[in-house]
């Protein structure tokens, strides 16, 4: 039986990984953080991260903040 054609997909270079890339270089991520920040303001105090937003200056830091907020928003009520 004939086999389907297989297309090789190269992996990106290891050097592509740049979590310390300045957040200012990506307006999309900057705005995603802003949206979560607005959402956080509406949460009860016990659900807020208490994070200083000015401390989020890199892509990796933005990802960590977004992770914390997403996790909180998907928790059942009452579990801060």
């Amino acid at each position, binding site marked *: *039986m*004939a*086999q*389907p*054609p*297989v*297309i*090789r*997909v*190269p*992996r*990106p*270079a*290891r050097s*592509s*990984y*740049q*979590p310390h*890339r300045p957040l200012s*270089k*990506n*307006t*999309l*991520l900057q*705005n*995603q953080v*802003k*949206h*979560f920040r*607005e*959402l956080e303001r509406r949460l009860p105090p016990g659900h807020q991260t208490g994070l200083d937003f000015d401390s989020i200056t890199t*892509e*990796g830091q*933005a*990802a*960590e903040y*977004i*992770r914390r*907020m*997403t*996790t909180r*928003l*998907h928790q059942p009520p009452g579990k801060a």
Partner: protein
Amino acid sequence: MSAGLDALKHVVVLMMENRSFDHMLGVLHAEDPRINGLTGNESNPDTTNEPVQVQPTAAFQGELDPDPDHHFPAVNKQLFFGTPGPPGVPSMQGFVQSYADQEHNVAHSHKIMYYFAAGKLPVLHALARNYAVFNGWFASIPGPTVCNRAFAHYGTSFGQASLNIFYVLEPYKSIYERMLAAGHTAKLYYFDPASSTQEVVNLLKNQPQIFATYPQFLEDCKSGNLPDYSFVEPNYSDHPGDDGGELLASDQHPDHDVQAGEVFIASIYNAIRQNPDLWKSTALLVTYDEHGGIYDHVPPPACTPDGFHAPLTDTGGIPFAFDRLGVRVPSILISPWIAKATVVPGPEDPVNGRAFEHASIPATITQHFIGAYDQRTVREKAAPTFLDLLTDTMRPEEDCPSFDFD
């Protein structure tokens, strides 16, 4: 109804980030003249008024830094440079000058005209060669991500033409709510909690039950539990994984590595392709939210307005009634029921051409799974749908490629 449409149980939409049609697929015109890509002679003037031709020298990373401006005022310049502006026909002559506005570096501004050579994008190019590529799929708005992605979820952005938060207005529901209310299943798969979704306020806060992650998508494909409708978001940031590993952004947003996006697209395709029951009952649409400020040569056409007017603060004072589309983006529809090397005509064909946009997504899902449904924008109702591309003939296994990773 075609046999392919009759067999269709699942639709999966993967929406990538910020690349134009010509940048990603323009080179394919040389091997298939039906594809409305680049001849190599297209140009834009730079700030010294010298013409800058397109070049097949696009790089995976490190080239489009800073992120090319793609907010409404910048896109307006990209589209209408040298003309009186809307409602006239876009000249598509302002991309280089718009990029030069950011750093005033003439040489660097030329890179906005670069496109990927044949062989550089084995995944996207293979999918375009093997399935259906759209010559006329446009961003919904000549603006940035959030408002464009909103059209894929709601068929409108509720008047928003920027990256700002927007709020859902009655009577319009997301396609996920519509599906659930009609007794169907729908999920929005984001990559992981650290990447999350771009639809933060309306979906994440109010509808957490519709969300799952990319690992769950892979598991659902494997176990045959994929919902009727799935929307997949790529990874939007470089960040550590739970196991301490390095997770590369896969969204292809400049300046993220385009190859990481290639791997991601291939992994989505393979997950469907490797489950025989799923493969024959699923259509996968790979599309991009908007052009990211990168050159494309096709003037975006007018469209049916959605009844909203953008705030002038979002548009640089330019009146905008959501009555014209954004820049063209790559879009490919994939299914074994699609004839190999299908090219869906766009505006270059005044008789058969169609102008698809992101409102075509909820329009298509609603039409196929729900049927008559009135509580949506006139814009969505007028948007062309795409499942007519499924034929009566299912292509054999050996005719449909698969991907393997180095």
